[in-house]
């Protein structure tokens, strides 16, 4: 598909930096350019064709020992200089009451380039061809007259960033990102059920158009349509306590909410208390807290090429590498940038990230993955006398300390005497983070491993929505409270 044309942004980053160098005691410049194409078809007809091109610069300026930020989309010399002056004024105004001081060590003088995978550029398919594929997907989702609504959507994003500092950092990164959403709505009288491919926003990967295997997508659309009908005719999920087998497309949410957010060091420092909340994890828990069962191995991994939040460097120029956060169930390390590491005196990772050119970076989880174990999916099912299998998230909620969660899924089947049996609808489960992770009793092997993500991790003041990736095998938890809909 042809990338949308626009007037070129005439800016030489190095020259811009050198011209601003005298404006502050230290200067950082982050240029971001991102083009997202949102293509959506509903019931076989165009629903949304939108292209968003975002470009601008965030200036970091240090004055009186305090760092402040100013964002502008005016990339002329005047525009950048004006933004630098605004950042300096903000730094001076807040220097007497700064939460933490600035040192150049918080912005490593690293030089480098990184490019995510892309075998087939987004121009390898015309808009007419892509639209035809989405129309065909709608047709495959409609497996019956009882499918009353079908939708197919793809978001193609190309992202470039260039970060430079007066202390010598110079980093360029480029990413191609694809999100997919295919959904069937089934209706029978008052009963309405929806089934999608892995949940509405879970199919998020890096790569070019090679990511989109349409033959496989079409087959999965037919399956989603059939499963929507199965849900229509199913009984409600029972209300009781039983073993819970979660698919990777639900594990993504379980890891995200009950492991990722509580381990963010800026939350532990209290930065998020006014909005998303604090954390049950305390600084003294690192190296001591048994977070879950010995089968629980979770890493911060920005190195898996196709995963949604893989990158080479974070937004302060820290080189990104894989680190275990939890090993054999023991909490080892938090999700904290160099700033948070310095403030808290704890080890962290390269996760200082911003949602765009107009936001300052904060601690974000990026890719958070659960290592495969050694159980096959069949072995896990066979081990369960009375349980339930759930997949594809549809509801999420957890408290501000990240303890008491309640999640709902699109699709579930009971497990009885070691076999998958009846489909049940409106499945939900709830629990408390630490006891829940201690109940992890089997972990699927590499064959049951799935890579997913979401573009919508919200956090920060001012608010930021950012991309994260989560990969996991199927996992089996014992004795979980489950329940259905109604009332």
């Amino acid at each position: 598909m042809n990338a949308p044309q626009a007037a070129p942004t005439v800016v030489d980053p190095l020259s811009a930096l050198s011209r601003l160098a005298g404006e502050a005691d230290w200067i950082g410049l982050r240029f971001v350019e991102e083009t997202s194409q949102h293509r959506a078809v509903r019931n076989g007809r165009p629903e949304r064709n939108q292209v968003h091109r975002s470009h601008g610069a965030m200036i970091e300026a240090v004055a009186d020992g305090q760092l402040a930020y100013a964002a502008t989309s005016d990339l002329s010399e005047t525009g950048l200089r004006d933004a630098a002056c605004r950042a300096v004024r903000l730094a001076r105004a807040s220097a007497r009451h700064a939460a933490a001081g600035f040192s150049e060590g918080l912005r490593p003088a690293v030089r480098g380039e990184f490019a995510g995978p892309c075998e087939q550029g987004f121009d390898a398919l015309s808009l007419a061809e892509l639209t035809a594929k989405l129309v065909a997907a709608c047709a495959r989702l409609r497996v019956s007259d009882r499918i009353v609504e079908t939708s197919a959507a793809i978001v193609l994003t190309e992202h470039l960033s260039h970060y430079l500092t007066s202390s010598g950092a110079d980093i360029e990164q480029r990413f191609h990102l694809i999100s997919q959403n295919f959904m069937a709505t089934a209706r029978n009288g008052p009963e309405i059920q929806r089934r999608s491919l892995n949940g509405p926003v879970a199919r998020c990967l890096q790569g070019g158009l090679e990511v989109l295997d349409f033959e496989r997508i079409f087959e999965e659309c037919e399956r989603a349509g059939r499963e929507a009908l199965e849900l229509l005719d199913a009984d409600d999920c029972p209300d009781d306590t039983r073993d819970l087998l979660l698919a990777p497309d639900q594990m993504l949410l379980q890891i995200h909410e009950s492991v990722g957010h509580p381990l963010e060091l800026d939350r532990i420092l209290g930065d998020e208390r006014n909005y998303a909340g604090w954390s049950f994890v305390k600084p003294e828990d690192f190296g001591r807290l048994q977070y879950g069962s010995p089968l629980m191995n979770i890493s911060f991994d920005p190195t898996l090429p196709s995963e949604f939040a893989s990158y080479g460097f974070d937004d302060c120029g820290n080189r990104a590498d894989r680190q275990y956060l939890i090993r054999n169930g023991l909490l080892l390390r938090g999700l904290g940038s160099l700033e948070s590491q310095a403030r808290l005196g704890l080890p962290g990772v390269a996760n200082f990230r911003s949602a765009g050119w107009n936001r300052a970076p904060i601690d974000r989880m990026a890719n958070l993955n659960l290592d495969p174990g050694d159980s096959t999916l069949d072995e896990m099912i066979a081990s369960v006398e009375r349980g339930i299998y759930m997949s594809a998230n549809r509801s999420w909620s957890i408290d501000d300390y990240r303890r008491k969660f309640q999640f709902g899924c699109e699709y579930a089947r009971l497990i009885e005497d070691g076999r998958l049996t009846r489909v049940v609808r409106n499945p939900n489960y709830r629990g408390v983070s630490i006891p829940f992770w201690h109940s992890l009793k089997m972990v699927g092997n590499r064959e049951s491993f799935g890579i997913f993500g979401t573009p919508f991790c919200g956090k920060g003041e001012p608010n930021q929505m950012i991309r994260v990736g989560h990969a996991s095998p199927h996992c089996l938890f014992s004795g979980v409270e489950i329940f259905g809909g109604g009332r």
Partner: protein
Amino acid sequence: MSFARDAHRLLERLSDGAFAALRPWEAASLSLAGEDQTYLRFNAGKIRQATGVRQLRLALDFRSQDRQVRFTTDLSGQETQDLCSLHAMLAQARSEAAALPPDPFATPLENHGQSEEWQEGESPATEGVVEQIATATADIDFAGLFATGLQVRGVRNSEGQSHWYSASGFFLDYSLFTVNSEGENKAVKGLLSGADWNGARLSAALDADRRLLAQLQYPSRALPPGEYRVYLAPAAVAHLVDLLSWGAVSYGAWKKGGSALRRWIEGEVPLSEKFSLRENFALGLGPRFNSCGEIAPMTVPIADRGKPKNLLIGARSAREYGVVSNGAESGPWSEEQLRSPEILPGNLPERDALKRLDSGLYIGNLHYLNWSDLQSARLTGMTRYACFLVEHGEIVAPIRDLRFDDSLYRIFGTELEALSDEARLFPATDTYEQRSLGGAKVPGMLLSGFRLTL
């Protein structure tokens, strides 16, 4: 010239240039959203991050022979450069429209008239605000976000329509923390907003908050799950209203099976006669026009004494389902959303709320709501901030936070015993991409039963 005046002139010049380049069978609309804001993020009474954001985002909505495409871009503010970008977008839009099949629900652009609203004021000096907040909160653990500056919205189209809105003002959204005798963190939430910052208002608000903090320092009570009589303070009710914008009162969402209130809309399940909900743009929290330039009525009754009156309808739903638009706006993740909702107050004097509650829970705030069963209007979430066990009309102890899971048919229906006689205004504090406009006005709600589950 001010940021708002410059932005207004830029939109005029860009639209004149773009519309002149249209072919006879083409139409276009340009909408502009921008801000010149200062954001100060506080933790422990100190500045965690200070950020200035100056941005202008232009959207081109292009129509050609039943095709519709939309492009958005960040403007530099330099007219020549931005006009060049706009012409490039127009060419791309033309090319894309030609590649698409017809869109039967693409609405023709219309002239919905002209309007201008200017609310310009001076932003307070950052240094003064920082000093006042730091001084006033020196003895308290304070976290929050202060935002101040100008916001602009404008829409012009090739049919001659032109609407403009700009406003300046601030909000301070904050939390105060303490530790009770059992070592648990407890907190109070506050929100100040208005056209002009006044440090004395903060001091007065903090004095009231300190009294609540003292009550939160008592040993807290861990309550078992179950059904409780509760009083939801207005801030908690505002979170319930927020969730209604996830499709519940959207015409499009209802027709597609995505409205949580379908059974109420279709007359199967009633809501309480005490419950009246309306869109009320007289609250003055944002423009009445939407991104198409349609002007919403000043008020749109949605629930009138429990009866369904209207759903929110935007131009696209109107075209698809053959109904009349009431100027509603869809968001990026959800169809037609409330922009200025108001729940009408009742007759329970707020000062008597605890006495009328008698024994139960006072819930100061709610957190992280989501549907747990959309078709049953069932939602879940957590209690948060100042929440207390009340016995015989008196606060006995703060509670440990609890998860709830209950249905709107009970909350706004069978269990709704009374609404407070005063409603509170909650201007929007969302700042995704840009500072939001809008907000809600809601009273407190006394419920005979509320299901707490974990």
